[in-house]
């Protein structure tokens, strides 16, 4: 232990700890893939058929409450995926990844507030722009529907860039730039809502899956080297 302490480096390394093993990327990739597949499937004939059956079942079972229960089903699926992935991450970290290096509970808000606010403004601004262009007759309805995904992608991309800069993880900056470009590209392509969802979320999932796998592999190699060095 030297008497010189690099406070900023210690802070940055602790902030990065939650993200360096790549599990967060893989979690986001899984959520993106699921979201895209769900949005795409719900607009196919089979998806519509399944949805109508669900609504009828809920109506028969819960009567007038069916409308609320229907909303809760989606929330339940979302929370199950989130909770399940956090549980798996916690097991992997406890058993392997963080067993030797120690446990950290990260801050609830890693992203600076101004970044969160700006990404929300980008998202809402994009949707508003789509609606304005539609009312001016410059674009058709499909553009506005594509804009829903594109604006969400741009907002999320900006969040990743802000987080990457804040905690000093360059891969998030590149991911954010990639997501922003992909979002802009799908906006300009003649795609339906479902196609946009599967294409854009698929691109996000692929990119996050690749960065997550690389980071995880690197973390596992480091652990193996530490164990061999003993």
């Amino acid at each position: 232990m030297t008497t010189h302490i690099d406070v900023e480096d210690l802070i940055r390394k602790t902030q990065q700890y939650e993200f360096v093993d790549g599990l967060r990327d893989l979690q986001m990739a899984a959520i993106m893939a699921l979201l895209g597949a769900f949005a795409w499937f719900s607009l196919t004939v089979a998806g519509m058929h399944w949805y109508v059956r669900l609504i009828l079942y809920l109506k028969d079972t819960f009567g007038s409450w069916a409308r609320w229960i229907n909303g809760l089903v989606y929330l339940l699926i979302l929370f199950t995926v989130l909770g399940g992935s956090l549980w798996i991450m916690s097991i992997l970290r406890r058993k392997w990844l963080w067993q030797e290096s120690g446990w950290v509970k990260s801050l609830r808000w890693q992203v600076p507030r101004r970044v969160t606010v700006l990404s929300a403004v980008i998202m809402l601004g994009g949707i508003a722009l789509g609606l304005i262009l539609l009312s001016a007759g410059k674009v058709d309805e499909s553009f506005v529907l594509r804009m829903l995904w594109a604006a969400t992608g741009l907002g999320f991309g900006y969040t990743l860039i802000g987080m990457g800069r804040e905690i000093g993880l360059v891969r998030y900056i590149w991911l954010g730039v990639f997501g922003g470009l992909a979002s802009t590209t799908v906006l300009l392509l003649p795609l339906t809502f479902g196609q946009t969802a599967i294409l854009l979320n698929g691109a996000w999932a692929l990119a996050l899956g690749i960065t997550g796998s690389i980071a995880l592999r690197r973390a596992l190699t480091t652990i193996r080297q530490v164990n061999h060095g003993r």
Partner: protein
Amino acid sequence: MADEFKQITNFDRLIHEPSRLAIMAVLSACESADFTYLLNATGLSKGNLSSHLSKLRDAGYVNITKGFKGNYPHTTCALTRGGRRAFDAYRKQYLALARRLQKEAHN
């Protein structure tokens, strides 16, 4: 120069000690961290870390929770609200002084 001297004397001495500064810096960047992580991050020995944590706990800067993870004892540390405030104030003072000294060195 007199101003800088005055600023330095205003530093929170409990935090300014290098080992405790390292502990506070790590804990300021998370909600909580366990003893193993603090050991690895700060490079302190177990005895030193324990002793510095006790001092920070006595000052009301750190909360120490002792429990079990499976069959193994597990100690978790977190900054208290007062601890976080004190570290933020220290960091602000420290960065302001560093900036000022850097500026003067350039001039």
